[in-house]
């Protein structure tokens, strides 16, 4: 057998060398063009010249709200470069993966976004990734400024672990004003589930799906479920069902699940392909009447210029309750830039920053002394409710139950969407509770 490879006999070595060289040069040129950019960001400066903030706020309204916080920080801390380490995709799952690997490797950012309650405790406090900030609260006199319900949620095992920035309401039904008036449907804060189903029948007869659902986002369906559960249990027992004092096999839970199934009688046919904001688009366009979503939807509508086409009301049967979805920032243990990190939290807790942040995101400021004069109509309604309603934690957003329980519920919901089997779902809830002990 000849030792000449067929390859080199067909192309002279010079030809090969020339092509390879061309490719290499091309690669270097292309790399060189983008090099300056790479180098400019590649090496983070040492010392306190930077602040790295981690979140998954990447939708239009969220990103704008985050920008406001950055602006407020820069106003009082000029010369500090803010690194926006936001990670998109997977409805936060990419971000969770990135954050958790960082934390397990002891390389935290200077702060990250978190919800209070169970998620804060299980993911960050128990493994020791955060530092208690009771001192900061005393120093900034925050104890008198945040409502008691909020303080309770951010206190884990007796210590304060989060600075809340904005409060979202989770039990809101947004609707297309035209569609409702055209079909003679009226809603009010004390309307019930039966009222809703009656309206749904009317809409269905008129050929319009009553509910726009984006079930590609599992949390949207979980929200729908917990709001329906809230309607069935009332705020006190709703809080108890997470601690186990009220069992998941309760009859009222069965009723809630049956109602959940009933929504699907009049729902948009493409819900499996839509995310929550795709479903919102359908309401803006009048292709569906209602959508159940937290009030960041209002931020989304504002960013798209559609806020005038929608109205809002609390979820049927949940008048008097406020499902609180609170966004806050943590103080990491071993923050790379501790001084900046502390100043960041001070900014987050400040009146000015919170007032600027809230409208973009569709939230109300967590501080009860925030300047309400700039509130838009939605925020006024939400703030009023927050002031008098019973505040309850949310499952869909990590406050009510641990990540384990939440994951089990997520999986059970994915199956439920397809088979609408009440019994299986209820059993899955019972099992999840037992499992999470």
């Amino acid at each position, binding site marked *: 057998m000849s*030792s000449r490879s067929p390859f080199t006999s067909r192309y002279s070595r010079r030809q090969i060398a020339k092509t390879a060289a061309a490719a290499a040069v091309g690669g270097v040129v292309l790399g060189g063009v983008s090099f300056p950019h790479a180098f400019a960001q590649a090496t983070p400066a040492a010392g306190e010249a930077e602040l790295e903030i981690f979140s998954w706020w990447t939708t239009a309204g969220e990103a704008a709200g985050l920008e406001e916080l950055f602006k407020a920080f820069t106003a009082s801390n000029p010369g500090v470069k803010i690194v926006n380490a936001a990670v998109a995709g997977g409805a936060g799952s990419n971000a969770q993966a990135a954050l958790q690997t960082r934390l397990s490797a002891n390389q935290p950012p200077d702060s990250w976004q978190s919800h209070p309650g169970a998620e804060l405790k299980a993911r960050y406090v128990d493994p020791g990734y955060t530092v208690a900030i009771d001192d900061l609260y005393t120093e900034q006199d925050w104890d008198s400024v945040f409502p008691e319900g909020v303080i309770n949620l951010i206190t884990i095992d007796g210590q304060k672990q989060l600075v809340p920035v904005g409060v979202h309401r989770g039990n809101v039904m947004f609707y297309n004003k035209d569609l409702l008036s055209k079909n003679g449907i009226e809603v009010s804060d004390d309307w019930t589930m039966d009222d809703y189903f009656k309206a749904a029948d009317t809409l269905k007869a008129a050929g319009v799906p009553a509910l726009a659902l984006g079930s590609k986002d599992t949390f949207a369906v979980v929200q729908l479920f917990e709001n329906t559960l809230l309607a069935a249990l009332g705020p006190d027992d709703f809080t108890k069902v997470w601690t186990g004092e009220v069992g998941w096999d309760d009859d009222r839970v069965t009723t809630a699940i049956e109602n959940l199934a009933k929504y699907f009688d009049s729902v948009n046919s*493409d819900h499996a392909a839509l995310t929550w904001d795709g479903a919102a688009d359908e309401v803006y366009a009048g292709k569906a009447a209602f959508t159940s979503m937290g009030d960041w939807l209002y931020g989304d509508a504002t960013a798209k210029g559609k806020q005038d086409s929608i109205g809002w009301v609390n979820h049927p049967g949940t008048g008097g309750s406020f499902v609180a979805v609170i966004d806050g920032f943590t103080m990491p243990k071993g923050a790379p830039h501790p001084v900046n990190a502390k100043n960041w939290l001070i900014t987050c807790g400040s009146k000015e920053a919170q007032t600027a942040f809230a409208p973009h995101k569709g939230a109300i400021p967590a501080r009860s002394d925030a300047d309400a004069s700039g509130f838009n109509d939605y925020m006024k309604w939400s703030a009023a409710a927050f002031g008098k309603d019973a505040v309850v934690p949310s499952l869909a957003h990590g406050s009510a139950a641990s990540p384990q329980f939440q994951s089990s519920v997520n999986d059970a919901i994915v*199956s439920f*969407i*397809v*088979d609408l089997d009440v019994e299986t779902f209820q059993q899955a809830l019972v099992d999840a509770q037992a499992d999470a002990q």
Partner: protein
Amino acid sequence: MAQGALERPAARTASPRRRLVPERLLSPLILAPSVIALFVFVYGFIGLTFWVSLSNWKTPKRDLSLIQPLWETYHRLFTTTRFQIDIRNSIIFTIFFLIGSVGVGLLLAIALDQAIPARGLIRNVFLFPYALSFVVTGVAWRWIFNPDSGITLLMDHLGVNWLLARFGTGPIRVDWLISPRVLGDIPMPDAVKAQIGIPVALIPVIIAAVWQLSGFAMAMYLAGLGTISNDIREAAALDGASLYRTYRDIIIPLLKPITISVLIILGHISLKIFDLVFAMSGKGPGFATDVPGIFVFEQTFGANKYNLGAAASIVMLALIAVVIVPYLARSLREVER
């Protein structure tokens, strides 16, 4: 080319050569760093993962104590409907993906084996998808299979739906990606809670994967076809064999080693698949496109059930090993001749 390329070493060093290290130790010594690195990065980490799968670690707080009874987590894993669905999806995906890629790859290679103009250009067209990242293509394919646009819209533009309307049938609406339907239902013992059939939503994913990787199979087959000497083809022609028979009875059997290589390489890629499904459809309606790769990702970082995630990855590894180890053993034996 080899003759004359070797410079006489005598002028450079004196002989007999005095070496720092006896020559027969040189080889293992040079290989050592790579081997050690791999032992840490592969076997060490797999060992750690295996330990985690047997541990109590199911919250973000690390807990490496062993769970009692030891098989508890694995038992839970296999009785979880979702994981059963994942295994079903993985097997269905692998089978159809391999058939598709090998089949299409072989056909394209044979087509390109004929004398056609611009062969190089056409070959590049088929090879291009292989150069792309799954993340990139997942987004494009998600659009293509979107039920309200994508293929449906294309049918509209091409007038196909208009034609169908004339015939009285409904328009073509491809809503596979959001459909939770499972075709078929093979009866299984009660312990199997998943419906055993072909999930419709998996079909677009299979199509996307075949599109992307069949070019690789084609390239392998093209290389193989090139080594089949012309004498064989001419002898077959002389014997009066038609082109079809020549391919079927002579050439394709000669390509068997390539087929096996392609099956091994593509097979293990498909059992590990994550990026494409993640970017294209996520877990899908009713877990129709959920695969073990996504399950591991979600259990580890979403639910923080580290032991469950680790157990699932060990199962993934075992599935792959079942395919790979016989191949490795066989090639090992072949060498020892």
